[in-house]
């Protein structure tokens, strides 16, 4: 209840491991900062192409996150709560895009949604809708690689949740959807936020599937990682600066969404009894 005296709880070896992990993540960042051409930084950032890429990256990754949540949370719910034949198969299917080398993912997306793809050819023929090489294509490619992270995280949380809380809500007259929205979702809040962060970060960093499926057109499909990658070919210093911009942005978002927002207002132990 009060102070934390004597209550760290973590054994020393665990802290040592955790700190090594932190160092492991910090060192490459320090490396980037160390090698960054600070005098040139502003010039590299304040460049139309870079800014356009940044804008596009933010918009697309946000859309991809929204799509991941809208489709991924119900999917996780289905996987966690409905017993059906082939559930393991469906679960594996939905983690597919994580193991696929992203470029292959892009090629697979072509086969599905490209001009000659299974579904894409009809989209083209009937609706005159072409997804490859468009901003929508970027969003799709990002969603394809990012959504599994949300699904897996949320499913795990649903399984950890006491289903009887939902029972209680239903006896109070909560229809399934109401119950889900007002009981299930808040209870698994930390996991949904965590999953969204994972998906967002993955979408923001997406490179291979995007460049393959959506191409690399400044302003419409050239996202920040593509800009970074291409700068690496021509101007490694600029690449470092742009990568740092990407890092700073995600840092800002994650740090600003502090613990309180991040993990709901009860900040932990949300399935506890009084």
């Amino acid at each position, binding site marked *: 209840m009060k102070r934390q005296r004597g209550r760290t709880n973590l054994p020393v070896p665990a802290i040592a491991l955790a700190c090594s992990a932190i160092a492991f993540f910090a060192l490459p960042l320090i490396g980037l900062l160390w090698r960054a051409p600070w005098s040139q930084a502003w010039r590299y950032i304040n460049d139309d192409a870079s800014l356009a890429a940044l804008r596009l990256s933010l*918009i697309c990754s946000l*859309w991809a996150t929204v799509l991941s949540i809208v489709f991924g949370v119900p999917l996780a719910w289905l996987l966690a709560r409905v017993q059906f034949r082939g559930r393991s198969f469906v679960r594996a299917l939905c983690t597919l895009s994580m193991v696929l080398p992203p470029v292959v993912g892009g*090629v697979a997306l*072509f086969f599905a949604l*490209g*001009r*000659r793809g299974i579904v894409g050819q009809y989209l083209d023929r009937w609706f005159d809708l*072409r997804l*490859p*090489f*468009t*901003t*929508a294509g970027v*969003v799709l490619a990002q969603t394809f690689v990012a959504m599994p992270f949300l699904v897996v995280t949320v499913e795990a949380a649903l399984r950890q949740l006491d289903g009887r809380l939902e029972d209680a809500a239903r006896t109070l007259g909560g229809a399934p959807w109401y119950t889900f929205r007002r009981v299930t979702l808040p209870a698994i809040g930390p996991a949904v936020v965590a999953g969204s962060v994972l998906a967002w970060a993955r979408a923001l960093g997406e490179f291979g599937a995007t*460049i*393959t499926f959506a*191409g*690399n*057109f*400044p*302003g*419409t*499909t050239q996202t920040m990682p593509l800009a970074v990658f*291409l700068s*690496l*070919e*021509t101007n*490694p210093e600029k690449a470092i600066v742009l990568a740092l911009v990407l890092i700073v942005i995600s840092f800002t978002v994650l740090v600003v969404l502090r613990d309180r927002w991040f993990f709901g207002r009860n900040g932990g132990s949300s399935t506890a009894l009084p």
Partner: protein
Amino acid sequence: GSESAQPSSDELIVFAASSLTEAFIAIGVEFEEANPGTDVTFNFLGSTELVAQLLQGAPAAVFVAADDVNMAKVLDAGENDGEPVVFAGNTFEIIVEPGNPQGIHDLADLADQDLIVVLCADSVPCGRGAATILTNAGVDLTPKSFDERVKGVVTKVTSGEADAGIVYVTDVLAVGAAADGVAIPAELNVINRYSAVVTRSAPNSAVARTFVDFVASARGQAILAAHGFLAP
């Protein structure tokens, strides 16, 4: 936002091999000045990736390949409109760290077991070139890595992780002071041919053809030469 990359009438989309990036950006600027109202957009990627995208219906008006193999794929698929124009060549150099601390002076020096040498993979043009050169020189070496991109080799040398690699002359030039080049004798060297073609799906093939012609023109050649490319 789902703005499309489908071109408007005065927009010209050029798919170009990424080794041409600096040179073509300069050419693009001059071309736009010379043809008011046109707007050139480049898609710089590895030739192979460009071919893959092209075959998937990417909206390119001009395709520029870094080697004959990739150009052949486009021709085989019938995606071209007219014959390709060979407009530049590129040769290879040994890329070493600035100041050449390991004292590498010829291909034979690369065979030293203590050196960290990286090459391009056989599947990409620069890898095939390097393999031919080493065969020509009769040097047998085991590199630490076969990179999938020539820039990967460059990055490894400029960051100090590798001692040497075989890359295009233009690549060494592009990184400036971050690396030095050691020339490979012409009799052992390989020339890589760059060619450009107008695509079948080009919405405004006239403008596209003008661009290809501009690249092959004296002005285009001058810019290319300034970036280290050889004449065709």
